[in-house]
Each structure stands twice: as C-alpha cells, then as structure tokens.
C-alpha cells in the first residue's frame, strides 16, 4: 500500500475564490479546507459549478481574471502558495505540482509532436539538453503503455486516439515526478472501456512516484475505484468528507445520499426511473442564508433555512465530517422514508 505519512503534503484552509461579474461577485469557492497526505488520493466530488475545478486551479495558482483568491491559505510542504510570486510559482507548476486536464483532445497542442510536448515539460524542470529530454519523453510514453513509443513520439496529437492522448497527458504530468498530481476529470471525455485503462495507468504512475493525487470528478464509480478519502462539494463549500467507506456506506449528508441514490445499479428495478435530486443548485451570486441545499433537501426543517450548518464530526469514524444539522438522525429518517415509500407503492 502507498505510504502516507502524517504531515500533510498539501493543506488548504478556508479558501475563498470570487469571480467578479456584472451582477456582483460570484463566490465560486467559499471557505474550503482540505488536506492531502503524501501518496494519498483525495477525490473531490460534486456537480458542475460546485467549485471543484476552481479549487484545483487555486492550488495551481491559475485562477485568472475576473476570478481571484480573496481569502484562505494554501500550504504545500510548509510553503505558503498564496501570494507566491509568479516566477516561483512557475517553477512549482509542472515540477512539484502537476495537473491533468479533462479533455486530452484539446490539452495537447495540435502543432506539436507528442514526444516534443512531453520533452518541453521536461526541459522546463529536469533537463537542459533537448536530446536527453526527447529520449526520456519516449521512455515515459512507453511507461504509460504507448506501443512503439519511439515512433509514436514523433506523431502529432491528431494521430493519437483519445485514450492514447490522455496517456500522453499523464506521461507529461508525471514527467518531473510531481509530489502532487491534480487530475481534473481525467476520464470524462473518454469511452467507458478506455476510462478503466487510463485510471489504471494513472494509478500505476502514482504508485511509482508515490505522488499524492487530488482527483476531481463527478463520477462516483471512479472515486470508488481509486480514492482513499473523499470530499463532497456543493455550492462552493464542503458538505461532507470522510474515507471512501464513510462516504459510500455511512454517509451523513442528504446531498451525498442523493448523489449515491442517483447512480444506476445493476440490481435495481430497470423499469423504475433513476432517483434525482429535485431542483437545481442555487445561484452563487445570491446564496440563501441557511444551508445551500435547503431548497432541494428532503429532510429540510426550519432551522436549515435560517442558519448554515458547519462541517462537524459526524460519527465515530475519524475524519468523517458532515455539514448537516440532522446528520445524526439521517439513518432513521431514511428508514422511515423507505418504509413510507414501500407502503405508498404497495
């Protein structure tokens, strides 16, 4: 198993990111705190607009106008990244912290041979000589499972299939042996069968370098397969965090339960429509005063609309925290709802 030491590699505390728009400022990330230990895989789950990607970009220092980090701290190995001068940040990017993007099709430069693109990443951090970087690039392509890597390194991205491109992206990201790898929906643009292979490559590469991984996804299947811990985000805040088992088997948040409930299951009745979470996420321009989920929540009570629940320890499991006033009652409430539902349909 991967070795996870106790001192966190990355710790984000109370991160706030705003985007200025004509209608006011959008609070894309609103007080997110998380830690990632060495060798650990932390998954950030949430629907579109929940602030997953913006959190990742903040760590990379790539939040661009009109967005800006307005509060909080990001610390990597004891170095505060927030406020780091651009030149120092540039050294970090692609070096200690690397990122894989969602769409391998558009993340590779079409005018650039694949091998040269990987070599370019190497030249910026590890090598001075082009030849050595090229040779290493070919080797990296081999490592991620590109057959005839020597020849394929001279290909252009359009000559690669989707899965191969994402492998090339992984090779590029891992090139300088980053300590932290941020994968932003690395498999979303790929076929299901290819997804599994790409994840396998990702995992093997991570294992080999003992890199920590921050996996951003909305695919709970991927989370189950690869993550150690999970953070669930909603409307710019963390609503629940815990180990894989905490989240999948002992979830203490209605939103997480809703996400899990909306997954199709092999053993479910195929004639029944999939469960959905009613409504849409709130506008980040005008967040309701209480819990952001309140308008969509099945277990909502008056208190939820007035006050915002903080992230609090949810049960005996260490590190399992949930931002719900009714976290403790949820199991009973669900059992009750299930019983009523069964009665109603009978």
């Amino acid at each position, binding site marked *: 198993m991967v070795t996870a030491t106790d001192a966190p590699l990355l710790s984000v505390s109370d991160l706030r990111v705003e985007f200025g728009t004509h209608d006011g400022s959008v609070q894309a990330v609103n007080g997110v705190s998380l830690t990632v230990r060495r060798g650990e895989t932390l998954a950030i789950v949430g629907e579109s607009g929940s602030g997953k990607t913006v959190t990742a970009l903040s760590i990379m220092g790539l939040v661009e106008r009109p967005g800006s980090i307005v509060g909080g701290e990001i610390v990597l190995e004891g170095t505060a990244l927030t406020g780091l001068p651009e030149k120092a940040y540039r050294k970090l*990017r*692609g070096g200690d912290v690397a990122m894989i993007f969602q769409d391998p099709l558009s*993340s590779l430069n079409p*005018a650039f041979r694949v091998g040269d693109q990987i070599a*370019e990443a190497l030249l910026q951090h590890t090598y001075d000589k082009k030849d050595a970087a090229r040779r290493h690039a070919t080797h990296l392509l081999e490592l991620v499972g590109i057959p005839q890597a020597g020849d394929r390194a001279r290909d252009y991205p359009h000559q690669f299939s989707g899965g191969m491109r994402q492998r090339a992206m992984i090779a590029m990201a891992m090139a300088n042996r980053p300590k932290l790898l941020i994968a932003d929906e690395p498999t979303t643009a790929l076929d299901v069968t290819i997804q599994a292979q790409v994840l396998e490559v990702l995992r*093997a590469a991570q294992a*080999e370098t003992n890199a920590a991984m921050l996996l951003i996804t909305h695919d709970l299947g991927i989370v189950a397969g690869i993550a150690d811990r999970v953070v669930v985000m909603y409307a710019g805040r963390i609503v629940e965090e815990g180990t894989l088992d905490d989240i999948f088997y002992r979830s203490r948040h209605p939103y997480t339960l809703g996400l899990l409930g909306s997954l199709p299951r092999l053993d479910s009745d195929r004639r029944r429509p999939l469960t959905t979470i009613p409504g849409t996420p709130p506008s980040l321009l005008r967040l309701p005063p209480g819990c952001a989920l309140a308008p969509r929540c099945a277990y909502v009570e008056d208190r939820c609309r007035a006050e915002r629940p903080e992230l609090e320890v949810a049960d005996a499991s260490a590190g399992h925290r949930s931002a719900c006033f009714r976290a403790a009652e949820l199991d009973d409430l669900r059992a009750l709802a299930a019983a009523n539902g069964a009665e109603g349909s009978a």
Partner: protein
Amino acid sequence: MSDRRPEFEHRVRESGTGTASPAGTSALLDAAVVTADESFDHTEFDDEGVSTAPPVGSSWRLVGRRFVRHKIAVASLIILLVVGGLAAFASVVSPYDFNPPLTSDVLDDARQPPSWEHPFGTDKLGRDQLTRVLHALQKSLLIGLGVAVVSVVIGVLIGSMAGFYGGLTDSALMRFTDLVLVVPELAVLLIVAKNPDPSFFGLFEFPPATEVPGMILILAALGWMAIARIVRGEFLSLREKEYVEAARAAGASGPRIIWRHLLPNTVGPIVVFATLEVGAAILAEATLSFLGAGIQLPEVSLGNLISDAESTVGTDLAYLIIFPGLTLFLIVLCVNFVGDGLRDALDPKATS
C-alpha cells in the same frame, strides 16, 4: 482497502525491484536503468485500435500534398522559381551588361525591336531590355521578400503581445495600429522616399529610400498592420485553448507559450499573409519608383523602367514599356496565386 487493489500493489513491488537506482530517482526519471517491461507491462493496454499502419508524415507533408493539387498555384510557383532564378543570376545568365559603357557598338544597337538576339528589344541607348528587366526584377523581388519578412516580424511582435496579454497592452498596441492604418500611405511614402537623407531630426540614421534597404524599411513600416491584426485575432482565440492552460500548468512562461504553443498554430495565416505582402510590396515599389521616388536611374527597378519608357506609348518603341509591365503583372499574379494555393492548403477545415 488493500484488498481492493491487489494488482496495484503487485505493480508497486515490481517496479520497486526493477529500479535499482540511486536514492531520489526511480523508474520514471531513470530512463537508462529501467525498460518499459520492468515497470509496467504495456501489452495489456493494446486494445484501443492502435493502428499498425506506419505513422503518417508531418502536417507539412499534408500541406504540400494539398498545395500540389492546386494546379494554378503550382504552375505559378514554377514560373516564380524559374524567373526568380534567372533574375537572381542575371549577370551570369545574360551576355549583356544592364548598364554597359556607351560605346559605339552599343549605341549602334539602339531601338532594335524584339529579336532572338534581344528578346525584349533594346532601348534608345542600345541596352538589352531583357537584361535590364532581369536586373530590375532582382531588385523588386529582393524588396518584396524583404518587406514581407520585416513586416511579418513587426506585425507578429505587436499582434502576439496584444493578443496574448490582452487588457491594457492590447488596447495600447491596437490603438497604435489603428493610428498607423489611417496614415495616408502614398503621400507619406512619397514624402519620405523623396527625401534622400531623412535622418529623423538627427535622431537616427535612416537608410535612403533610393536604395533597397531604405525602400524595404519604408514599405514595411506601413505594411505590418494587417498581420498584427490577424495574429492578434488568432491569439485571442488560441489563448483560451486548454493546451495553453496545460502549458501554464506545466510551468511555461508567457513568452514561452507565445513562441512554442501559439505561434506554431498561427503559421498558416502568417505564411499566407507574407506571400500576399510580397506581391503588394513589389507593386508599391513599382508605384513609388514610377512616381520618381524610390530606386533612381541608373539603378533599375521595374517601376523606373516603366517610368523611363512612359513616352514610348503609342510609338514603335512601345515594347519598351510592354515587357517590364508584363513582367510586373506576371510576377505579382504568380505570387498571389501561390498565396491562394497556400491559403487553401493550410486551411484546417479543408478535407483530406
């Protein structure tokens, strides 16, 4: 959790033993020590329809193939290469001097109509007109290429900075471009070109416009705006591409992204523009020289040859103006056809 990924662990162990490398480095970094099979077996990935066909050549070969299909452009390119080659080696190819000492032998040949000996005839002083046209063409082509190169350099520099950095940089540079665009070109060119020694109020020496370098600088100074706008437009859309973000995430600096990622993707429009600029510059030079500015006799250019023979229109000597005129027409036409061909060949939306 360990039961969930047995093969994963297996891999870790495997690669661990495979990398007998010094501390701090292991398989991914140490290309020399580890081969692919030791770290992870790639045969299990061979499934996504990886073609066994040999990799197709570079994208430039593709462009070449598409260009060849454009028959007129190919013919134009051949004409340009042949005529350009003749012009470049005019003094070797032609048995005559374009400006011979006016001996009685030469003067005896004056006003000869076109013949095998003098295909374009001879002028009032007995000089071989074909030789003069070739020498003039040499200058015209030199000026055309020079202007294209210099204006592309200026235009790309300004356009890429404006497009990539945006904001205030963009506004400032583009307003400057607009300013230069509204300069009445011909008037300014004439004023500058007619001034034999414009030293810009003693600020710096400017090569006189009566010679090739000065001509190139003047024409380029007023010819870069279109390319600046084209490059800026391309950059505005390209800088939003994910690969630019990916390059940033890999630690690339602004200038590096411009140079390595954005410019290579803008080569198409730049090449097409540069080609068309060659034709435009040749015409502009001819116009200026015709109007008495620019290259001065006894040095020859297409413009001053035409200007010199102006009075022959309607006389038996009209061939003296027809041949330089036709040459100018043919060259500019060919350059523009080549530009058209390149535009079609470089169009990414074109099929195959």
